[in-house]
C-alpha cells in the first residue's frame, strides 16, 4: 500500500486525466449524434424544399398551420384511419379485377408502387408535422398534398390556401371537411424521405441567415481593421497609457511586477529549443559541412538554453524577495504551450483538406499529440512520487518487490507490460525473506 499523501496526489492526477478524456468523449459523442442524424433520412416534417428556384418539386406532407391537435384527437384520428384502411382492404378484395391502376394507397401496407423510404405511422406523422410555428420564414415550404381518390372521398386533406399553390397540380383542393385539425392521409405520390446523399446539393441556406452571416463577417472585418490605428485610435491609445501610469503611481505598491508574459516567453523558448534539438539530433549528416553545421547548431542551442536558465534564475529570486500581500489565494494558472493565448480578434481562417484520409490523419495525430502530452505529464508526476518511495523503503522484502515490479510497469512500460522477478536460489533452501 502506498502512503496516504502520495496516494491522494497520484489518484487525483489520474482522475484529472480521466476527466479530461471524458469531457472530450462527451463532446465527440454529441458531434457524432448530430452528424449521424444528418446523414440518415430526414424526418418528412423537416424535409426542406428548395427555395423558389429550380429544383424538383418535392411533394411532401405538410405541417398544419393550425394549432396542434390534442392527444385525444390524435387517437380518434388513428382510429378513423384504421377504419378507413380496413374499408379499403375490404373494397380492394371485392373489386380487385376492376381496380386497375388505382395505385393510390393508404398507409397500410398495400401494394403501392411508390417507394417509401420511411413510412411513419400517421399519428406520429401528425405530431411531427405539428412543429411549432406557422409558415416557416425560410425556404422551407411544405405543400399540402390532398388525398387523391380516396375511396368514398370521405376524408380529404384540407390545406391552407397559401400552401395550395405548390404541390402536384393534379391534386384537388377539395373543400370537403373544413376541419381545423390535420387529417394526414395517404400521400399518394409518396414523398421520398430526404437524404443528404441524394439531394444534398439542392439545399440552400435561408435568406435571413445569409444576410446575418455576411453582416457578421463584415463587422468583424471592420473591427479588425480598426486595430491598425488611425488618428482617433492613436489619441485613445495615449489616453489609455496615461491612465495606466496614473493608476500605477496612485497605488502604494512598488511597480515592478513580474509579467507572466515573461514566463510564457521562456516556456515557449523551451519548447522551441527542444523541438530544434530533436530535429538536429535525428538529422543524418551526409558530409562534413552538415556535420559541422549540426555541431555548431547544437552548441548554439546550448548557449541559448543557458541564457534562458539564467533569466529564469533572476525571475525566481525576484519572486522570492517580494512580500506577499493580503490577496486571496488564486487558482493555479495552466501554462499554455501556444505562448500567450488566443488571438484577441477573430478572423476567418480555413483548414483545407482534399480527402477524408487526410482529415482522419490530422485528427488522429492531434489526439495522439494530446495523449503523449498527458503521458509525459503523468510520467513526471509518477516519477516524482514513486521513485523516492522506493529508495526510502529499506526492508527489501516481498512487498517491496511487488512495489518495484508495479512501479517498473507504470514508469517504464506505460502500464502495459510487466517484468518477471525470479529468485536466484541455490539448491539448498534459504530462509524466506
Amino acid at each position: 500500500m502506498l502512503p496516504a499523501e502520495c496516494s491522494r496526489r497520484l489518484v487525483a492526477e489520474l482522475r484529472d486525466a480521466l476527466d479530461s478524456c471524458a469531457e472530450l468523449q462527451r463532446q465527440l459523442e454529441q458531434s457524432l449524434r448530430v452528424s449521424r442524424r444528418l446523414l440518415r433520412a430526414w424526418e418528412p416534417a423537416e424535409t426542406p424544399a428548395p427555395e423558389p428556384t429550380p429544383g424538383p418539386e418535392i411533394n411532401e406532407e405538410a405541417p398544419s398551420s393550425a394549432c396542434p391537435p390534442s392527444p385525444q384527437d390524435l387517437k380518434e384520428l388513428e382510429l378513423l384511419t384504421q377504419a378507413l384502411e380496413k374499408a379499403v382492404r375490404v373494397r380492394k378484395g371485392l373489386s380487385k379485377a376492376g381496380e386497375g391502376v388505382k395505385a393510390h394507397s393508404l398507409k397500410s401496407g398495400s401494394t403501392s408502387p411508390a417507394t417509401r423510404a420511411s413510412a411513419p405511422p400517421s399519428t406520429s406523422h401528425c405530431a411531427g408535422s405539428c412543429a411549432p410555428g406557422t409558415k416557416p420564414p425560410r425556404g422551407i415550404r411544405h405543400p399540402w398534398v390532398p388525398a387523391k381518390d380516396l375511396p368514398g372521398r370521405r376524408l380529404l386533406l384540407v390545406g391552407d390556401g397559401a400552401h395550395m399553390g405548390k404541390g402536384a397540380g393534379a391534386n384537388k383542393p377539395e373543400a370537403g371537411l373544413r376541419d381545423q385539425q390535420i387529417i394526414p392521409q395517404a400521400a399518394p405520390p409518396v414523398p421520398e424521405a430526404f437524404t443528404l446523399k441524394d439531394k444534398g446539393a439542392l439545399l440552400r441556406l435561408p435568406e435571413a441567415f445569409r444576410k446575418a452571416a455576411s453582416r457578421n463577417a463584415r463587422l468583424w472585418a471592420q473591427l479588425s481593421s480598426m486595430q491598425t490605428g488611425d488618428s482617433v485610435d492613436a489619441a485613445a491609445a495615449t489616453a489609455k497609457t496615461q491612465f495606466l501610469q496614473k493608476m500605477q503611481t496612485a497605488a502604494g505598491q512598488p511597480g515592478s511586477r513580474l509579467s507572466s508574459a515573461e514566463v510564457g516567453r521562456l516556456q515557449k523558448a523551451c519548447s522551441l529549443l527542444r523541438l530544434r534539438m530533436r530535429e538536429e539530433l535525428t538529422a543524418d549528416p551526409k558530409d562534413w559541412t552538415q556535420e559541422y553545421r549540426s555541431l555548431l547548431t547544437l552548441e548554439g542551442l546550448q548557449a541559448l538554453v543557458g541564457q534562458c536558465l539564467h533569466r529564469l534564475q533572476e525571475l525566481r529570486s525576484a519572486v522570492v524577495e517580494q512580500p506577499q500581500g493580503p490577496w486571496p489565494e488564486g487558482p493555479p494558472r495552466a501554462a499554455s504551450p501556444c505562448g500567450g493565448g488566443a488571438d484577441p480578434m477573430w478572423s476567418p481562417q480555413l483548414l483545407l483538406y482534399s480527402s477524408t484520409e487526410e482529415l482522419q490523419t490530422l485528427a488522429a495525430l492531434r489526439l495522439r499529440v494530446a495523449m503523449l502530452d498527458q503521458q509525459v505529464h503523468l510520467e513526471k508526476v509518477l516519477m516524482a512520487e514513486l521513485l523516492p518511495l522506493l529508495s526510502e523503503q529499506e526492508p527489501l522484502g516481498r512487498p517491496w518487490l511487488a512495489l518495484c515490479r508495479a512501479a517498473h510497469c507504470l514508469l517504464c512500460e506505460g502500464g502495459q507490460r510487466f517484468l518477471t522477478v525470479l529468485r536466484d536460489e541455490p539448491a539448498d533452501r534459504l530462509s524466506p525473506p
Partner: protein
Amino acid sequence: MGRRRRRQPDPADAARALPEAIAALSRTLPAAPSPEIFRRAKFDRPEAAPALWRLLFHVLSPLSADSASVSFTLVDGPPELASPIAEAQVRWVKSVLHSQGYPRLALVQLQDDGSQGGRELLLALAWLLARGPLPERLLTQSHVRLGDEMPVCECEALASPGPPAPRVEAEGSVDIRHLQWLMGKLQLRWRNLMAGQQEQCALLGKIHSYTRGCHSDRSLGHLSVTETELLRDPEGGRQLLQRLETENARLEAALEWRHRELVFWRWMDTVLDTCPLEASPPTFLPRIPEPGAGAAGLPVRELQALQEELQALQEELRKAVEARRAAWQAAVGGHGPEWRAARRALQVAVAQDLAALQWAWEQGKGQARPHGPRRLVRTEARVPGRLGLWATEATEALRAREACLEAMLHQLQGQCRQELARLVGVRPGLIWVPPPAR
C-alpha cells in the same frame, strides 16, 4: 427679444458624448449595467457595487481557464435586479485581478459581500479595458461558430476538465494496483476517443461532399454541419439566427465604442482624481510565501517545472555536444585553407538561424500564422490561390511535435529504468526479467 443664436458647438453634444460612449460600452460587454450605474459608481454610490462586481465576474470568467470551478448564477433580465453576487465570486474576481497585476490595494480591502466599492470597481474595469482589447477578446471568445472547427495549433486538445464532478476524495492509502487499473482505464478511453474521432471525420467528409455547391460563399463551397443542421431543424436554426444577430449588435456596439472611447478616458481621469491617494507601502505583515502562490500569481511550482525542463534540456545538449565535438576533433585534419572560409560561412549561417529562432519567442507573436480553431473546408487538391492552411502542412507540423514528445517520454522511461535497476541491484539473488521488447 431673444439673443441671436450664434453658431457654437452645442454643449449638449459634448454632454451627450460621454453617456453615448458608456452606452456603447454597456451594449458590447456581457451583462453590463446601464450607463446610469456607471455614473453612480463614480460617486461611490452603494447601488453601483453589486452590478459592477457582476460585470467584472462576467468579463473575467470567459477568459480564465478555471472559471468553471466557481459556480455561476446565470443572469436573466436586467443585471441590476439579478441575484446578488456570491462571496466566492467576489473573492475569485479579486484573485484574478491580482494575478493579472492590478496595482491598487483598495480593491482587496473591499468587503466580500459585494456591497461597496463602486468607484474602485469602475477603476478596475477601466484598467482592464486600458490594458488590451477587452471587448474584442470577449466577442471572439463567444463568437458564433458557423463552420466545423478544428484547432491545429499546439494548444492542448484537452481543455480543462470542466466543472469537476462531485468526487469523493480519495480515502487515503491505495494499493498501487489501483493506480495500474486507473492507467488501464485511461488507455481504454483514449482508444475509444481515437475510434470515435475517426468516425466523426468520415461523417464530416461525407456531409461536406454531399453539400458541395450549396453555399452562397464560393470560397467555402459546401455547407458545414451547423449550417446543414439549421436546415434540418428550423427551430434550432431560429435560435442560431438569434445568437448571430445578438453578436452583430454587440459588434456594432464595439465599433461605436472604439470611435467614442476617448471621452471615456478623459472621464476616468476625473474619477481617479476623486480617489484618495493610497498610502505608501501598506503596513501589513507580509505573509509567508506559500508554495502555491507568488507575486503576480506566478506559482513557484510553475517556475520550478520550467527550470527542471530547461536543465534537462541543457544536460541532453551537453552530452550531445561533447560527443560530437570529440568526434569532430578526431576527424578534422586534412582540411585545407578552403576549410577556414567554409567554416566561417557556416558559423554565420548558424548564427542567423539561431537568431531567427530566438526572435520567434522574444516577439509577442511567435506563430507564423494566427492560431485558433479553423473552419474545415473540403476542396480539390492543390487548387492555387486558396487562402488557408492545408491539412497536409498541419500534419507535418504535428508530426514534429509528436516525435519530440515520444522522445521525451522514452527518455523519461529510460531514466526510470536506470534508477530502478540501481535500486534493485542492491539486492542480490534476484533475476529481473524484463518484458520482451516490442
